[in-house]
């Protein structure tokens, strides 16, 4: 009884924070879908923690918490890799933008440059 209340509170709290962040536009809508999914999973697993036991049993996992950890870590890894991919894309765009800026300022600022 008591551990279900604890996990429900934790799950709802986490889901609530995520939903609040999405609603406040702190998260780009591109990421919002992922986090809505996470919020949903956290909420469901928080309210019905026995679900993981059931799932583990179905998948032949002896010790159910390992399933939870493996799934959780897997999702974190996927997220981190996608962040790095996104980061590399941004780095490329920023570099090209800086180059373009250097080229355009040259076109534009020629006349008012006292040293030219």
């Amino acid at each position, binding site marked *: 009884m008591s551990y279900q209340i604890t996990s429900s509170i934790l799950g709802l709290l986490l889901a609530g924070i995520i939903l609040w962040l999405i609603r406040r536009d702190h998260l780009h809508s591109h990421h919002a879908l992922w986090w809505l999914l996470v919020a949903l999973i956290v909420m469901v697993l928080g309210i019905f923690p026995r679900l993981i036991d059931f799932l583990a049993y179905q998948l032949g996992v002896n010790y159910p918490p390992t399933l939870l950890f493996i799934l959780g870590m897997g999702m974190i890894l996927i997220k981190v890799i996608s962040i790095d991919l996104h980061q*590399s894309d941004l*780095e*490329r765009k920023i*570099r*090209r933008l*800086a*180059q*373009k*800026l*250097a*080229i355009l*300022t*040259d076109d534009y600022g020629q006349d008012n*440059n006292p*040293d*030219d």
Partner: protein
Amino acid sequence: MTISIQPIAILIPAKNEVNTVGKVIAAVKTCLIDVTVVVIDDASQDDTIKIAQSAGAKVLSLPFSLGAWGAIQTGLRYALKQGFNTAITMDADGQHEANSIPILLKRIASQPCDVVIGAYPQRGSWLRQVAWAFFRRLSGIPLTDLTSGLRAYNRTAMILLAAPTATLLDYQDMGVLMLLHKAGLRIQEIPILMYPRTSGHSRIFSSWWAVSRYMLHTAILCLAKIKSSKKPKCHTK
């Protein structure tokens, strides 16, 4: 077949090279008349821009530092936009002799090749030699001087290297060579003389930590870009 190598742009990436950049530009200008000297200022904090401008160079100023290759790519994009047919890159630290440029130009004009590298493989410590031998094996690129900053590119090579695929590179070395190699462009080396640096030091071979990092990064780059072993199209001279 005979596309003119004119007009020619000399691209000089410079970061805090106030002591040498003026002399380098002057040397180029006395050596070659009909070229445009473009200094790409990699967010210098000294008077590099002023010196370069008063020496008569066109100066492109980056809003923040992109590293040596980022600066060179800026120059290549500029040169393409302005319709240059040949781009020469050289260092601002006085390492390269302006006299070498006509040698490179002569080669790129007379022979069917897209890139000419001014090579001086004798330079450098045993450490550098070991690193080069290692990367030659790893990448399958049979060139002798892998990090030379004195290069001539024709328009085909410029277009390839100005593209977004080349933007995440950091140095004008293995990554650039592998891109050219993979695209099947013809690279030639020509022996030249280089001065020891009059100021500053190699950005790559500065400390053991930097060397290790550089080696690791380049090794990963080589492994990522490895090509199925077709016959190499590079020619070494």
